[in-house]
């Protein structure tokens, strides 16, 4: 048996060797796509928000919340129709990083495990990807609150 150290070294060497054969991701093209599509989603959200404030006489906070809800519902509907993953293939982080990606990450596993029933299938799997996001986000918010309390 080889010891762990040489094994690790060999693995590293092999990984470097494999890299020679692996095509590089198109970082520039992907980056430009993500920048533009992500920017467009945010700009569209801002447009809707401004429109809501102007025509519906909503306050800024209420308008923001409505926009968030709209974005989430749209992304989830697109996921249900099977279009979101096609969109994500093009946009990459452009639609994964906005709240739309979070919405997609809830519906996609839930649809997938539909055959396991409405409780343990859909119900549980809604959180298989989004769960960690909520757990970490909410924990961070508690920490933020505690820090604020200590500094008062």
């Amino acid at each position, binding site marked *: 048996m080889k010891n762990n150290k040489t094994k690790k070294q060999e693995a590293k060497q092999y990984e470097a060797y494999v890299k020679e054969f692996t095509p590089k991701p198109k970082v520039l093209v992907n980056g430009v796509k993500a920048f533009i599509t992500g920017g467009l989603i945010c700009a569209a959200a801002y447009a809707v928000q401004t429109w809501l404030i102007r025509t519906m006489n909503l306050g800024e906070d209420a308008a923001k919340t409505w926009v968030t809800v709209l974005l989430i519902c749209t992304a989830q509907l697109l996921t249900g129709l099977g279009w979101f993953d096609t969109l994500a293939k093009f946009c990459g982080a452009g639609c994964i990083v906005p709240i739309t990606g979070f919405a997609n990450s809830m519906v996609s596993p839930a649809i997938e495990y539909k055959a396991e029933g409405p409780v343990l299938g859909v119900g549980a799997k809604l959180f298989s990807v989004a769960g*960690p996001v909520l757990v970490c986000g909410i924990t961070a918010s508690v920490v933020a609150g505690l820090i*604020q309390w200590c500094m008062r």
Partner: protein
Amino acid sequence: MEYIKVFVTGGMICLIGQLLLDLTKLTAPRILVIFVVSGAVLQILGLYEPLVEFGKSGATVPLPGFGYALAKGAMEAVTEKGIMGALTGGLSSAAAGITAAIGFGYVVALLFSPKSIR
């Protein structure tokens, strides 16, 4: 002018995400977590609020904005209600979004079936 600021801010945040996807081995779920937590941390440090003032939706719509909203809610609630605010503030500030995502997501998942390869 406002729209350009929104577009550039949102675009930049997504670009960072894309670079993380392409240049590191991080998978999409991990990136989502990193973004939400970093939004919260930046808000604790007082750095995200200026970005929101500059980029508006460009800073709130991407996931760091979600972390920012959670952290901001908790911090404001603490100022108003004391220590209990640390527990209630975060979720109540993002309640509409989370509830919509869960409720509508559940309905969508029940209505649609997974599609095969395109």
